[in-house]
């Protein structure tokens, strides 16, 4: 169970590869039949406007605490081998990865449900805020869209 807050760009597939190699394989090689991953990427368009950049603010400490809580809740609800959450903060550009959540299990149903839980709970509870930079001016994103 790992939480990473990144202040610079990350590649979700590098993160997956490294985490499987360094953490999963030594502990669970041959046991994790299923991994489900969600990767969220910054779009250049939102609510009818072009977006040229984004500032991702968070509440350091509370962020880690809530991402840990959410991971723990998933581990209690489903039979998981491990989970990983990576979230970017700071100033980012369109097409930059924002978030990665992953759940490993022996079986696929569990992996899908847990990954979905991680991203939905992250979006509704983890203290992050997005400020979009538009061609003219900037604005805070008011609400996350429902799934």
């Amino acid at each position, binding site marked *: 169970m790992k939480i990473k807050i990144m202040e610079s760009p990350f590649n979700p597939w590098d993160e997956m590869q490294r985490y499987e190699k360094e953490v999963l394989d030594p502990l669970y090689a041959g046991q994790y039949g299923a991994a489900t991953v969600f990767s969220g990427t910054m779009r250049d368009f939102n609510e009818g406007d072009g977006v040229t950049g984004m500032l991702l603010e968070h*509440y350091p400490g509370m962020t880690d605490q809530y991402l840990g809580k959410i991971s723990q809740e998933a581990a209690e609800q489903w039979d998981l081998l491990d989970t990983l959450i990576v979230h970017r903060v700071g100033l980012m550009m369109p097409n930059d990865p924002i978030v990665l959540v992953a759940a490993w299990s022996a079986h696929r149903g569990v992996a899908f449900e847990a990954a979905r839980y991680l991203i939905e709970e992250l979006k*509704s509870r983890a203290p992050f805020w997005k400020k979009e930079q538009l061609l003219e001016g900037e604005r805070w994103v008011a609400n996350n869209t429902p799934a």
Partner: protein
Amino acid sequence: MIQVRFFASLREEMGREGAELEAVEASTIGEVWEKVAAGKERPANLLMAKNMDYSGPDTPVCDGDEVAFFPPVTGG
């Protein structure tokens, strides 16, 4: 002392990152808001945390607590 923190759009509206209160000035999170908000009504969708846990306006506060106010979260 009670440490008060504002985040995101609320921080910008307040014009500051936070405040400090003497513990005797407020006994609940709701009272903390009244002391630091300079008359601003508490937004209906305002979120509150005490020591980095979501809390409500009636949650008691005491010396050494950190209280945060912020708008709906928009991560992910």
